C-alpha cells in the first residue's frame, strides 16, 4: 500500500508545533510572562507614568516631569521617612540573618521532637501578618502588655515602657515584630541549604582536628553562602516594602517616627488623593533596590 507523501509547505499541526523546542518554550513561558506583564510590568510602568504627573484622584493628570520628586526632596518628612526605612531594613535584616542562621543550625541537629519544633517555628511566617500584628498590639499595649507586666512584677522596672508612644521604642517595636516574623523564612531556607552538605565533609574536617567553630567558618558557611545571599536579597526587598506591620502597629507614628516609604506613599496616594505624589514616593525606593539587586547578582555570578 502506497503511503501518503509528507506535506511540503503545509500548515504545521499543533503536535508538530509542540515538538519544536523554541515554540514549546514560548508556550510554556506564556502564562508566566502574561502574569508578570499584567501584575508586575503594567503596574510598574503605570506607576512611573503617574509619578511624572500632578494627578489627583478622579481628575486628569498634568505632566510635571520630575516635579513630584523635587517636591519630595524638599519635604523634611520624606527624609525622615528615608532614614526610618533604611534603619528598619538594615537592623531587621541583620537580626533575621543571625536569628535565622542560628535557628537553621539548631534545627539541623538530631533531637527528639525535631519535626514538631520545625513546624512550630514556622508559625510566625504562616499566620497572616495582620493577625499577628494585632496580637503584638496587645503585647505592646501599656495596660495589657505581657512584657511590661513581667518586667514590673519581677521588679525589673517600676512603670511599664511606652512601647508605641516613645519614638525610639516604637521603632524598636516594629523591628521586633518584623524580625519575629522574618526569622522562619531565613531559618527554613538556610536549613534546606544545610541539608545539602555532605556529612563526610564534617567528618573529614573533624579528623583533621577542626573545632566546631572552624567547621562552621570553613565548611558550613562557604557552602551555604549563595543561599544566604539570595535569601538576604529577598528579605531586604520584602522589608523595604513592608507595609502591614507598620501600618497596623503605628501607622507611622508617633510624629512620623516609624513612617516608612510605603506607608507614606499610601497616605499620600490614598488618604490625600495625590496619586502622582504617592507613586513618586513609592518609586524613590527603586534606586536603592536596583543597586542592591545588581550588586548581589554580580557577586553571585562571580562566585
Amino acid at each position, binding site marked *: 500500500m502506497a503511503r501518503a507523501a509528507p506535506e511540503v509547505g503545509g500548515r504545521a499541526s499543533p503536535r508538530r508545533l509542540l515538538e519544536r523546542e523554541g515554540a514549546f518554550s514560548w508556550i510554556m513561558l506564556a502564562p508566566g510572562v502574561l502574569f508578570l506583564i499584567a501584575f508586575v510590568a503594567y503596574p510598574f510602568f503605570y506607576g512611573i507614568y503617574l509619578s511624572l504627573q500632578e494627578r489627583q484622584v478622579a481628575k486628569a493628570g498634568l505632566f510635571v516631569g520630575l516635579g513630584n520628586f523635587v517636591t519630595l526632596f524638599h519635604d523634611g518628612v520624606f527624609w525622615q521617612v528615608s532614614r526610618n526605612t533604611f534603619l528598619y531594613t538594615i537592623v531587621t535584616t541583620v537580626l533575621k540573618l543571625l536569628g535565622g542562621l542560628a535557628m537553621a543550625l539548631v534545627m539541623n541537629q538530631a533531637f527528639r521532637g525535631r519535626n514538631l519544633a520545625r513546624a512550630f517555628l514556622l508559625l510566625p511566617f504562616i499566620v497572616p501578618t495582620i493577625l499577628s500584628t494585632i496580637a503584638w498590639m496587645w503585647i505592646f*499595649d501599656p495596660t495589657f502588655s505581657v512584657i511590661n507586666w513581667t518586667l514590673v512584677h519581677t521588679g525589673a522596672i517600676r512603670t511599664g515602657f*511606652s512601647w508605641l*508612644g516613645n519614638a525610639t521604642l516604637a521603632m524598636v517595636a516594629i523591628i521586633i515584630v518584623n524580625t519575629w516574623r522574618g526569622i522562619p523564612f531565613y531559618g527554613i531556607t538556610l536549613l534546606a541549604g544545610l541539608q545539602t552538605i555532605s556529612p563526610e565533609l564534617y567528618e573529614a574536617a573533624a579528623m583533621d582536628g577542626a573545632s566546631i567553630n572552624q567547621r562552621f567558618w570553613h565548611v558550613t558557611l562557604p557552602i551555604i553562602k549563595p543561599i544566604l545571599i539570595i535569601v538576604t536579597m529577598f528579605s531586604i526587598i520584602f522589608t523595604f516594602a513592608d507595609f502591614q506591620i507598620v501600618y497596623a502597629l*503605628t501607622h507611622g507614628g508617633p510624629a512620623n517616627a516609624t513612617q516608612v516609604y510605603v506607608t507614606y506613599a499610601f497616605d499620600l496616594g490614598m*488618604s490625600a488623593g495625590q496619586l502622582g505624589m504617592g507613586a513618586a514616593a513609592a518609586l524613590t525606593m527603586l534606586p536603592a533596590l536596583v543597586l542592591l539587586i545588581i550588586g548581589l547578582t554580580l557577586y553571585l555570578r562571580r562566585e
Partner: protein
Amino acid sequence: MSTRREFLTVSIVGATGAALAPRLAGAAPKSMSVVHESSFIKPFDDFFVKQLAPAYEKQTGIKINYETVSVGSMLTRLTTIVETKSGPEITATGLNWPWLFDPSLVDVTDIASDTGKKLGGWYETVTDAVVINNKWKALPWGNIGQLEVYRTDWFKEAGVTKFPDNWEDLLAAGRLLKKAGHPFGFELGHGFGDNHGWLYPLLWSYGGREVDKDGKTVLLDSSETAAAVDFCRRFYKETMFEDVLGWTDVNNNKAFFGEQISCTNNASSILVVGKRDFPEIAKVTDHALNPNGPKGRFHMLNPQSHAILTHAQDQAAAKAFLRWLYDDKQLSAWLVAGDAYYAPFLHAYDNHPMWNPEPRYIPYKESLKTSRLPGWPGPASHAMSESVAKYVVVDMFAKACRGDATKDVIATAVGQLKQIYKAK
C-alpha cells in the same frame, strides 16, 4: 445595497441604534449597589439590609445590594471605585470627600433642595463639605461627632461634679484625676479620626488657623497657635501619659474599657459598645461638648453622606432611590435604628424621638452648629486632605508634647503647609 456609501450609512445607523437601544428602551436596572463603611451600630446596617432594601425592591422591583467595608478603609475603596469607574452606583462619603471626588459625582441638588424644604432645612455648616460650586454632590444623613467622653464617677470622686466648660478648667480637673490614678487619654498619634477630632478644635478655640479662606495663605504661624501648642503640652504632661503619642483610633476605646483613662475625645461609639459589652462602665460614662477656648468652642465636622457615581449606568434610577431613601418615612426610621450615632443635619430632626431614649447623645446634636472641616476656614480641597493625611497639625502638637520647642514645631508645620497649599 448598491454602493459602498450606502453600505457605510446603513452600518453606522445600525451600529448607533444597537448601542443606544438599551438606554432608549428605558428599562429600569434590576439591581444597584450602595457601599458603606461598616457602622459601629450594627442595627443601622441591618435595618438597610432587612427593611429598606426589601421594601424598595417590593415597590420597584430593583434589588439594592448593601456592600460594607471595614472602618477606616472607605476612602481607599472609594478611590478604587472612582479610578476604575466600576463598582457600586451609590457610595457613602465622609469629611471633605465630595470635593476630592467631585468630577466623579452626580449633581443631586434637586434632591437636596426638596429634602431640605420638606424636613426643615439643612444645617449651614454641612454645606462646606457637600456643596461644590453651588451644586450638591452628596446628601448628608448624619454627622459622626467627636466629643468629650468621661467617667462621671471618677470625676465626682475628684470633686468635679460638672464637666469643665473651658480647656483650663479641664486641665485642672485632669490634674486631680491623674493624681487619683485616673489620667486622661487623648490620641496624639497617627489614627484617622480621634486625633484630628480634638486637635483641630483645640487649635481653633485658641484662635489658630491652618490656612485662610482663600485656601492659599498659611496662617498657622501666630501667637494664637503658639498658645494652643503651649496649652496642649501642659495638658498632655499634667493629665496624660506617654502612650497617647503613639495611639491610633482603637487605643482610647481600649484604654477607656480597660479603666485606664477617665476622659478622652471620641464618637459616641464608646458608650454604644459600653452599653452592649461593659454595662457597669456605661452607667458611669457621659459626653460633653469640647471645652471653650479664648476664641470659642469648636468640633469636628464629619458628615456621612450618599453620593451617586457618574459611572452609574442609570443615574435617574440611582437618584430615584436616594429620593425615596431621604423621604422622612425611610430616613427617620433608619436614623432611629442608628441609635442617634449619626446626628442628622436636617432641622426637622432637632427634636426627633431618636434623641429621647438616650439623652447622653444629645451633645452630639448640639455640636453640629460649631462643627467645621479640618483646615477651616480654608475651603475644602485636595490640599486640605493632604494636610490631614500628612498629620501636619497632629504632629505639630505631638512633637510639642514630647518636648520640642513651640516655635520649632510651628515652623516645621508652616513649612509643610506652605508646600501643600502652594503658598509663596
